């Protein structure tokens, strides 16, 4: 579905991605793990057009995304729930959800999906008229995921959805990722919580200072000694 080849991104003099290649097959959960500053967020931003690659290719079902504007990439079903949630704090929960569905014109469908989100995240329904910025971190993360889903993504990319959340909420978010995937949405998940991510992923990639250094099915990477040492915090 999504294929990244030899992707390079520079920020001024910083070479953040140095020829990374990976792919996300349709209907699968793929995870990208790596240390701070490895270039995970940069990869997702490049895919969705928020940063321009200096070289390499990004194709969605064969079509290049490189020169498209973000809005057009999102309209093709590639949606990012960004790092740090980036909900609109001065808007209500409901307005945030409506913004998620901004590209859609089927009012009835949007309304139905809003109710679906409220079923998925009952907390959000209680807070539908509340300014999103006044909600707790966990609620804001639920909103960020729900907002991304409102666009009916074909490929949902999530950048550290579990960051800073209590274990119970983390579990809930991961359960929902699994549910979404089971319903046919392809997932590209970036996580610090490598263990949880690899457990639900069909396939994983390890990113180190801008390059892919390892890859394999989630279970295999979980069992890999190098990965265990570097990313699962197990005995050195």
């Amino acid at each position, binding site marked *: 579905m999504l294929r990244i080849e030899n992707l390079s991104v520079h920020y001024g003099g910083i070479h953040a991605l140095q020829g990374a290649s990976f792919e996300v097959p349709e209907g699968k959960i793929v995870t990208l793990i790596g240390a701070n500053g490895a270039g995970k967020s940069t990869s997702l931003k490049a895919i969705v057009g928020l940063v321009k690659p200096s070289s390499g290719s990004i194709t969605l079902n064969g079509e290049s995304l490189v020169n498209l504007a973000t809005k057009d990439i999102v309209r093709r079903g590639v949606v990012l729930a960004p790092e740090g949630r980036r909900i609109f704090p001065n808007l209500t929960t409901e307005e945030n959800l409506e*913004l998620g569905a901004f590209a859609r014109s089927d009012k009835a469908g949007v309304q139905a999906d809003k109710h679906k989100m409220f079923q998925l995240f009952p907390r959000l329904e209680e807070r539908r008229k509340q300014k999103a910025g006044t909600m707790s971190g966990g609620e804001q993360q639920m909103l960020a995921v729900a907002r991304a889903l409102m666009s009916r993504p074909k490929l949902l990319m999530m950048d550290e959805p579990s960051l800073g959340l209590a274990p119970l909420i983390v579990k809930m978010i991961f359960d929902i990722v699994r549910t979404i995937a089971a319903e046919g949405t392809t997932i590209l998940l970036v996580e610090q919580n490598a263990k949880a991510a690899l457990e639900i992923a069909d396939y994983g990639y390890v990113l180190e200072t801008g390059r892919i250094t390892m890859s394999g099915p989630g279970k295999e990477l979980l069992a890999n000694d190098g990965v265990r040492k570097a990313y699962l915090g197990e005995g050195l």
Partner: protein
Amino acid sequence: MELSTFFQQLTNALSLGSLYALIAIGYTMVYGILRLINFAHGDVFMLGAYFAFYAVTALAMPWWVAFVVALALTAAFGMGLERVAYRPLRDSPKISVMISAIGASFLIENVGIVLFGGRPKSFPSIPLFDTVVHFGSVSMLSVSLFIPVITAVVLGALLWIVHGTKTGLAMRAVSTDLDAARLMAIDVNKTISLTFGIGSLLAGVGGIMWTMKYPQLNPLMGVMPGLKCFIAAVIGGIGNIQGAVLGGFLLGMIEIMIVAFLPELTGYRDAFAFVLLIVVLLVKPAGLLGKNQTVKV
């Protein structure tokens, strides 16, 4: 002071406040969405008046057609200004954009002097706005009554757009977080352009009504109102539409009241806006309705 004089001054204050409010909104909307002070906004106001003037005189249009044409041109001009002077600098340091804004302002004023001539022009009388109406012993120009009413209608429409439509939702999203708005598939450029269009349209409404009330046009007529309305927007809390309206009315009221009650201070009426600005900023740095957060400009 007699009651009739008081009412007379009150209508004056109300119409001046309305005009200030209309112009102040343009500053606040552009600041809200781009964190940019559009120094050329007062000149856009001036252009609105000149467009209407030439449409009525040179093109001999009926006044209401002329006004619609002038408003369309003013809005288009504002959008063009954004396109030419600000969009290319979207990712540049704030100071570059500010210099561009000041440059655009000088450019418009000086091209205005060349094209329109430096000598003031007087707007031909339009009977609907030029009639003297009497309420008991109070008499005033009909335009002073039209201005607050038109302003109220325009404000209502604006608030409906911003809070009641999808476009308004996009504007609010863009003004909060540009990249997050892009991720919502919002066309950020179009939204910013529209914001300039609306702000300029309001300045056009202000400019045209201003010349109905004070029928003298000159290419620098936007400088002082522009400056005062910027102050009004800051006093109200820049970025906040209701704040701009409040600031505009406050400034208009105080200015007229000074002229009416303290005639010996009339010469300082313009300076007073700055005094008020300093006082408000000392007491409430974010403005009357602004959120208390520090923004570095």
